[in-house]
């Protein structure tokens, strides 16, 4: 059973009061997102070469 702290519960139930948007992200949202991009890109990862070899070997075996 997963136990949640008050802090985590607050995050899960943050008051998402804005309505569903009918247009693109706002300028503020985009500006904020742009500041995140460089940090997010640091998390880009690549599969191990052996995974790709396995996939290609499977394909060739068919």
């Amino acid at each position, binding site marked *: 059973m*997963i136990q*949640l*702290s008050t*802090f*985590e519960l607050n*995050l*899960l139930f*943050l008051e*998402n009061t*804005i*309505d*569903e*948007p*009918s247009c*693109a*992200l*706002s300028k503020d*949202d985009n500006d*904020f*997102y742009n*500041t*995140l*991009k*460089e*940090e*997010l890109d*640091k*998390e*880009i*990862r*690549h*599969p*191990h070469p052996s*995974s*790709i070899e*396995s*996939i*290609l070997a*499977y*394909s*060739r075996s*068919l």
Partner: protein
Amino acid sequence: MKLQGKIDHELVHLYIAGQESGLEELIRRHKSKIYTSVYMLVKDEYLAEDIFQDTFIKVINTLKAGKYNEEGKFLPWVLRIAHNLVIDYFRKEKRTPVITNGDGFDIFDVLGFYDESIEEKMVRDQTHKDLKAMIQLLPSEQKEVLIMRHYGDMSFKDIAEITNVSINTALGRMRYALNNLRKMMETKELSLKLH
């Protein structure tokens, strides 16, 4: 024409016609987007490798069986398969990826650092770790939209199709994700020092 110059559906047709190089180029082109999208959801390198391989086995089987009918939308199709495999995994495990931190990283460990010495610890690497942790604390539906959008480079239309919601809902989830990240960063006085 070199393979690099071909669009995805041309590579798909090359592969279906028997040229393995078509598949090799598709994998080379999209492997990082697919793998990172999976990894960010499951937070486990080995599991991500397994799901990455299983995804392409399904892709291969579908293509070889002549059942592929989404020409021009190869990446969203593959990401949908990967996404479904991730959901299957969490269903089998009877848990959701909402707050799990597979790498053992806990947001509260980070918060302790802030109290200790905020100026010293706000270096680029730490900022990156903090942001990572905050992303993992997002509700799962918000996290997956952020991941598909950023790492999968997907349109909101494609995200909406994969997650079975309207475009507005997908867009709304992205806004919630950004709002929640902003709130967390403000609460913890975390600022991005990019340069």
